């Protein structure tokens, strides 16, 4: 019989503090970059200082002669004649006794470059006669057209009598992940064919596989540890060239461990980014506010090879649409998945156009949005059946959010927000995401004769609270406290666990955790029932007691003692109904801002985030993920931007100073609410890591436009972009 979540849970869905929160906050937790195994050497990478260059020669000898240097190597397939396609492209690596020696040695490596012409901005890349990043099928002038999509007859619909339309350009820049802990690992080559690594990764299993594959050794010979990790956001799915290089250096250095973590600049340059979005949009609706047509020509850059596409149309029902997207290639680091890949860009473009059109129509943008939801928007339940309609969910969520931001009382049309220097504005945006998890993972549950309980799987905690989630589920089933459970994760040799991407970790790991706890419990019942003169099916667990027909009979520890020498050790798998496999969530966010129109400075006063994600295991870790998502979105909305220099082809702000990120005093009041009805709970577990970061930047941009009466077409909402938008409005007037 398939298991079902308890109808009246004691712990599931309550607010439970992260079990490892204190050790993380106090610095007691040892991150992979804190590891310092005995005999450890420091690794450092030499990377391209040029945006585009050919290597004429490499001489490692000067570095090899430097003090403290134990190993030097050229990385990957680099050799004389190789082309480097971006500043930050990897060339060689060093391992030395101290970090300073390693960097000095990196500088001593002699590389002769033939500097090639480069393109680092979208405008540079598409200019006539621009240098080519690389040759490939279908690439013309550094551009590759994605397949265009057309529904209905958008041109005709837009030109129909009575249709009101806008035509606008919107732009969002390339941003980078800025993981607080950089990419990398500390690795030890053991003997001829074994590897042990402490990696900052969101996929211990994938990282182990990468290392095994690189050396042609069995994955069983590789152990990857990730007890805790300092942020990934989609950019840390494997060993990467840096990890594999570090393992080679360790082998060369006779098995001495090598620590290889990127410096902050390299992190910005070569460890992934979110592609830019450039959109030319025409959006039209009937006078009463029903969308009829969207025509969008979009482009973006994901660097020297990655794509940049994003979903559009987004969320709303548009009967006629045409969309063409062009990938632009530049001599910049390649994009990697970044928290809800594509969606924040799609949301900015769609929601900005929605707001601009609502303004032109003279309709409240909230009403305009509700009018244009899909008639039915079916997404999956916990049995992979499309029985859940997202449209009424959006209606409820928007009502909740509007109430919390005070839309009815505070919202005023554009240009009607006062005449002083400080203007207040409200904005909103809707978003969607998948967030289910595959049914392919396992969790081991052990009950020991001393009463201790261990939950174990090769997943990791990217911020989802995986340890706490396991403990809550086991404690719920076993009638124990959360702190009675030991959760062990972040070890590639444990039973197969979910890589943390696509908001899949909690939905993928909760079902096998639940089933493992049930299997262990049932085995315990079989063992202790005879001693209680009861049948196993008469036993239950509650408040640390084994109960017979509901009556407490035996304390937990005494029951476990009856196991004698033998622990119970079982492995749980997933089963239908406990979690959604493909998800399909919605949500909305509202922003209240004040804009100083004399300085262009934007202050976000309040964000309201409403989110549905099925059954919530821990309300507190759920909320903290939404806070994190909102803060990430706020950074995208207000601050972040990769700035490239066209002449020399370098990134000008590869730091955390001029690459701007919110500090504590930039964080507004954030109100988070779960949309968690019985129908939502019945969908089972769905992940929440990504959806709450999607619509924040769009909502902030809309709030700024509402405040100042003019669209700021360029994200982020910096003083420059705001003042430039105000000036262009005056220029037109």
């Amino acid at each position, binding site marked *: 019989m398939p298991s079902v979540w308890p109808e009246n849970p004691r712990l599931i869905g309550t607010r439970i503090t992260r079990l490892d929160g204190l050790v993380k906050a106090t610095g007691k937790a040892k991150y992979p970059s804190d590891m310092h195994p005995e005999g450890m050497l420091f690794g450092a990478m030499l990377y391209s200082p040029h945006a585009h260059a050919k290597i004429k020669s490499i001489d490692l000898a000067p570095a090899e002669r430097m003090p403290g240097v134990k190993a030097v190597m050229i990385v990957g397939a680099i050799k004389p004649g190789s082309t480097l396609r971006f500043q930050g492209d990897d060339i060689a690596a060093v391992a030395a006794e101290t970090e*300073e020696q390693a960097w000095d040695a990196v500088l001593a490596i002699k590389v002769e470059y033939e500097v090639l012409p480069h393109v680092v901005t979208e405008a540079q890349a598409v200019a006539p006669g621009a240098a080519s990043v690389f040759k490939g099928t279908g690439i013309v002038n550094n551009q590759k057209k994605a397949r265009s999509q057309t529904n209905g007859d958008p041109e005709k619909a837009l030109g129909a009598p009575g249709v009101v339309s806008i035509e606008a350009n919107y732009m969002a820049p390339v941003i980078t992940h800025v993981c607080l802990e950089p990419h990398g690992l500390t690795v030890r080559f053991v003997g001829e064919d074994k590897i042990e690594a402490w990696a900052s990764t969101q996929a211990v299993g994938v990282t182990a596989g990468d290392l095994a594959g690189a050396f042609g050794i069995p994955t069983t010979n590789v152990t990857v540890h990730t007890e805790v990790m300092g942020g990934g956001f989609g950019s840390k799915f494997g060993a990467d060239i840096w990890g594999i290089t570090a393992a080679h250096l360790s082998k060369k250095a006779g098995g001495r461990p090598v620590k290889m973590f990127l410096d902050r600049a390299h992190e910005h340059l070569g460890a992934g980014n979110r592609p830019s979005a450039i959109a030319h949009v025409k959006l039209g609706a009937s006078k009463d506010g029903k969308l009829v047509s969207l025509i969008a020509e979009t482009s973006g850059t994901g660097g020297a090879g990655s794509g940049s596409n994003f979903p559009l149309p987004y969320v709303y029902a548009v009967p006629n649409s045409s969309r063409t997207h062009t990938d632009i290639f530049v001599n910049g680091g390649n994009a990697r998945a970044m928290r809800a890949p594509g969606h924040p860009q799609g949301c900015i473009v769609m929601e900005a156009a929605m707001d601009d059109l609502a303004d032109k129509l003279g309709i409240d943008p909230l009403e305009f949005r509700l009018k244009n939801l899909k008639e039915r928007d079916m997404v999956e339940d916990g049995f992979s059946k499309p029985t859940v309609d997202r449209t009424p969910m959006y209606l409820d969520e928007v009502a909740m959010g509007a109430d919390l931001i005070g839309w009815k009382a505070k919202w005023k049309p554009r240009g009607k927000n006062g005449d002083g220097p400080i203007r207040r504005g409200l904005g909103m945006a809707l978003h969607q995401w998948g967030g289910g998890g595959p049914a392919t993972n396992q969790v081991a549950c052990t009950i020991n004769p001393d009463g201790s309980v261990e939950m174990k799987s090769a997943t990791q905690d990217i911020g989802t609270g995986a340890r706490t989630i396991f403990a809550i589920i086991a404690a719920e089933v076993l009638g124990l406290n959360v702190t009675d459970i030991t959760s062990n994760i972040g070890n590639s040799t444990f039973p197969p666990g979910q890589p943390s991407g696509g908001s899949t970790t909690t939905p993928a790991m909760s079902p096998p955790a639940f089933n493992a706890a049930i299997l262990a419990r049932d085995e315990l019942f079989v063992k202790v029932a005879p001693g209680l003169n009861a049948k196993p099916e008469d036993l239950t667990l509650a408040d640390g007691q084994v109960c017979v027909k509901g009556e407490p009979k035996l304390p937990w520890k005494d029951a476990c003692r009856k196991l004698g020498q033998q622990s119970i050790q079982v492995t749980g798998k997933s089963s239908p109904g406990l979690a959604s496999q493909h998800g399909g969530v919605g949500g909305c966010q509202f922003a209240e801002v004040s804009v100083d129109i004399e300085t262009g400075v934007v202050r976000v006063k309040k964000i309201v985030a409403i989110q549905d994600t099925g059954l919530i295991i821990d309300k507190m870790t759920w909320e903290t993920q939404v806070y994190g998502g909102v803060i990430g979105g706020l950074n995208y909305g207000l601050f972040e931007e990769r700035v*490239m220099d066209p002449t*020399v082809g370098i990134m000008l702000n590869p730091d955390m*100073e001029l690459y*701007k990120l919110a500090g504590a005093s930039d964080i507004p009041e954030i109100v988070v609410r779960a949309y968690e009805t019985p129908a939502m709970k019945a969908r089972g577990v769905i992940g929440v890591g990504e959806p709450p970061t999607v619509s924040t930047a769009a909502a902030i941009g809309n709030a700024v436009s509402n405040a100042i009466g003019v669209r700021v077409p360029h994200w982020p909402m910096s003083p*420059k972009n705001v003042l430039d938008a105000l000036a262009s409005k005056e220029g037109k007037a």
Partner: protein
Amino acid sequence: MKAFEYVSTASADIAVKALGGVDGAILAGGTDLLSRMKDYVTTPKRVVDFNPQSVVQKETSPGGVPTWTILAGTTLADLLASKALREELPALWQAASEVGTPQIKNMATIAGNLLQRPRCWYYRSGFGLLSVKDGKNLLREGDNRYASIFHTDGDALFVAPSSLAVPLIALGASATILGPKGERTVMVSSLYQIPKRDSDRELTIGADEVLTKITLPAPQGKNATYEARQKQSHDWPLVLASVSLRFDGASVSQASIVIGGVAPIPYRAVEAEKAMFGKPVTLETAEAVAANAINGVKPLSGNVYKVALTKTVVKRALLAAVGNRYWEEV
């Protein structure tokens, strides 16, 4: 970071001797020098860790104007802790309060703030002070959103980075400098110059000299600073202005108006100062005076927005001095 010799002293005399004849650098709070060394932008042979006292005091001399003395090693945190300074030198207090983070304020010193090197991203990327490469000025051709809008005919397009220089110049402060030939005192404004060649420095202080203290006469009148920046937390000003005003009745009899973030040196808005003369500070006069502050402005391709920002910042600094904070939400 390149290996270096290290000297630590609280004595200015020893610091000057230690700087003699080598490629040396003074380490004050370290918030600037260490990051330049880590990025290989600055590679001194000898680092002289000069840690003099942190002292702020006001001395009254009989019959004369009282004088404020701020020793070189005074941290921004200690400056901010002085209640008397906050009351009498709000322009300086305000500028100091907006610098960096609490951690930086605890480390950074007044001398270090005045003598820090430009934050220009080309300079920090190793392209030199003027960032001219193959005859092309990278800052002029490239992303110059944070660059100068005044004195832009030359090649020095970076902005002077010191926030404290702006109010100190407005307040008529002097700097005392000790060198191998003894002590000299100059106006704080004379610490800065516009470099013409890449080998020039933007600071006039010699490589073997040490700034020992700042002195300024107690202001007779009102003073204030207004700063505009993108973030509320740790960020650099986009533009800031400090004013020091003397009054004859309700009218301004003498005005000092200095703007930061707009030129390779702290920029003195002389025409605005003249325009302020003989008028009371009102919303209307401040607006008109601020318009004079941008006479001769020549923005670059990407920083036209700074012109409007400069006007606003000057206007608000003037009004802040007389207690009109019209831009604050009620």
